């Protein structure tokens, strides 16, 4: 019995954590390839299609290239801050996935296998908090480089992420009001009974706020100001090379997966099949564990949306970006949360 407890309480969570890390690395590779191919397709060109079938091995080749590259740190950089930044950014992105439920449960001989590493009554809060830690990495990277373009990039990213943290928190709070829980698993389970959150009228506006802020917080186009190529060359990570640059790169894509996962969990029913409360549609969820597939399909939709947005819009200017956050997003989110609160009390 003790032996089993060891397996269930220690070994399986450890394996799960490792699996999540591997899953994210694979997602980064898929996303890098998919982004380049999809944007290429939108722009009437090919994108990488030489390494492996349809260029799928291109990201791996790129990673190997980055691994073999020289790690340059210029003299004036602050050693500690410069080196700790890539670690923080990647660790914070990976750690947040600890609480994300990827699928439903599989009962197995009295033990229930769950598709999440950990469950916490304040899971949502933890995810938001941990993922925002990455702002320290941008500050450290930008200021620690002790160079002008990274400094400006760092400044921009701090203001941007701090500004967008507020509306995103308010938007997410509306969901919490509805689900009466901050537990991400409970939020999904609640959607099983009442239908997806996005189908509830008061939660439509929060979704759009959440999504716009998610794009802004992941530093993706059209909000990619901290690393605006045509202005700041590469923003806060201008001075990074080799594997440290790869860390920032991986973290950006991991954050994209995180934002998509949160959107799916909070608004699109997580692992649930469409209209899972309808008995006639039960065949959409044929066996325990099938939820993982639904989760995957949904996040791929959101990830493609990221790419589509990038292919369409020009870049915001810095002051417009801040104006958008404080003049539109924050008041709208506040008003909305007020309405949601009223509805819930009533």
């Amino acid at each position, binding site marked *: 019995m003790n032996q089993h407890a060891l397996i269930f309480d220690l070994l399986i969570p450890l394996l799960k954590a490792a699996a999540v890390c591997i899953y994210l690395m694979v997602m980064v590779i898929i996303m890098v390839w998919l982004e380049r191919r999809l944007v290429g397709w939108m722009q009437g060109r090919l994108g990488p299609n030489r390494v492996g079938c349809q260029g799928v091995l291109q990201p791996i080749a790129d990673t190997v290239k980055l691994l073999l590259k020289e790690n340059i740190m210029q003299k004036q950089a602050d050693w500690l801050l410069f080196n700790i930044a890539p670690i923080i950014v990647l660790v914070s992105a990976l750690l947040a996935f600890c609480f994300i439920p990827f699928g439903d449960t599989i009962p197995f001989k009295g033990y229930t296998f769950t598709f999440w590493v950990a469950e916490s009554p304040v899971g949502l809060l933890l995810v938001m908090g941990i993922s925002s830690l990455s702002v320290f990495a941008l500050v450290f990277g930008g200021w620690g480089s002790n160079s002008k373009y990274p400094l400006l990039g760092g400044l921009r990213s701090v203001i941007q992420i701090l500004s967008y943290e507020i509306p995103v928190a308010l938007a997410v709070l509306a969901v919490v009001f509805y689900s009466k829980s901050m537990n991400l698993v409970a939020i999904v389970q609640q959607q099983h009974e009442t239908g997806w959150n996005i189908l509830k009228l008061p939660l439509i506006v929060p979704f759009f706020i959440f999504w716009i802020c998610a794009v802004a917080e992941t530093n993706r186009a059209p909000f990619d100001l901290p690393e605006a190529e045509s202005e700041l060359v590469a923003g806060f990570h201008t001075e990074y090379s080799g594997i440290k640059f790869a860390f920032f790169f991986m973290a950006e894509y991991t954050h994209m997966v995180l934002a998509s996962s949160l959107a799916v969990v909070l608004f699109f029913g997580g692992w649930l099949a469409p209209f899972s409360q309808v008995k006639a549609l039960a065949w959409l969820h044929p066996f325990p564990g099938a939820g993982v597939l639904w989760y995957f399909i949904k996040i791929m939709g959101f990830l493609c949306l990221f790419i589509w947005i990038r292919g369409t*819009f020009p870049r915001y200017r810095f*002051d417009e970006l801040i104006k958008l956050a404080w003049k539109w997003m924050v008041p709208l989110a506040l008003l909305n949360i007020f309405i949601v609160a009223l509805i819930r009390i009533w």
Partner: protein
Amino acid sequence: MAFKQIELNMGPQHPSTHGVLRLKLTVDNEVVLKIEPVIGYLHRGMEKLWEHRTYPQITPLTDRLDYIAAILNNLAYVLAVEKLAGLEVPKRAQYIRVILAELQRVASHLAWAGFNANDIGAASVLLYSFIEREGVLEVFEAYCGARLTVHALRIGGVANDLTPKLIALIRQVVAAVPQRLADIEALLSENRIWKHRTIGIGHIAPDDALRYGLTGPALRAAGVCWDLRKNIPYSSSEDFDFEVPLGQNSDVYDRYLVRMAEMRQSLRIITQALDRLPEGELCAKVPRFLKIPPGEVFHTIEGAKGELGFYIKSNGTDKPERVKMKAPSFINMQCFEKMCQGYLIADVVAILGSLDIVLGEIDK
């Protein structure tokens, strides 16, 4: 927190300084206080070089000035030489020149549309406009075998005739470009982000623009009607019916609108020239060793970037004594600091893009 003013070096290796331009920015946080353009990284000593080349040998060298619009450089140069030598160019050659020059203007403006949009973050537009530019370059390739540095014009006329096959190809390109322009406009014209980024940015008063010698689409965007094809016609440009698009607000957005409209007008001119293409010689009788009697001449045309002119002084030999080029990019660059003051770093790249400069022309 007191943020010190910092001096920021933009370029000469920077993604959006359009070549090897270096900008020394003095910024307070992100607000630009001072801009000092540093040029000369692409200096090849063109004007001195020309003094040691015969008149026909100079024509291909002019390709390398504004390499985005080589035919217009050719045209400005050969017109100046012809004016000095008193050569009469056959009508057919003049029409072919107009067709090629307007195609080149379309190609140049398309490249500008892509670059400016890319600077403002809309990378897709760059690719879309280059698809059509490719079509124009294919016409050049079919005409003379080269795509970028074409050397399509000769002193006294043109190099090759327009074959029926080529005319069909040009008509095909002329038909395809407006659709692509509509695509680009659908992406940008009413886009809120694009409008935020361009309306009211890089303003210069019409008086100032004239005082600084600003020419080309940037001047017309300020509402000043000055197009040499209308005002001082050359190469039969008075034969064609076209409008001069004007802006009102003299900002980046108006420069965008003016250039987009100009492309459509250029296509109109091409269609008219193709319809009315006269028969005749391709080249005037030019002596094998062209010796021009002593004298001097200055001739300007409406280039893609502005007034493009050549001053040539001859001394009776087969080589010019002095050639001076009036490079529109160089002169338009003067306004740049005035346009940028008080705007943000992000606007600097937008304004620089809207001026449409080419460093090959600035540095000569």
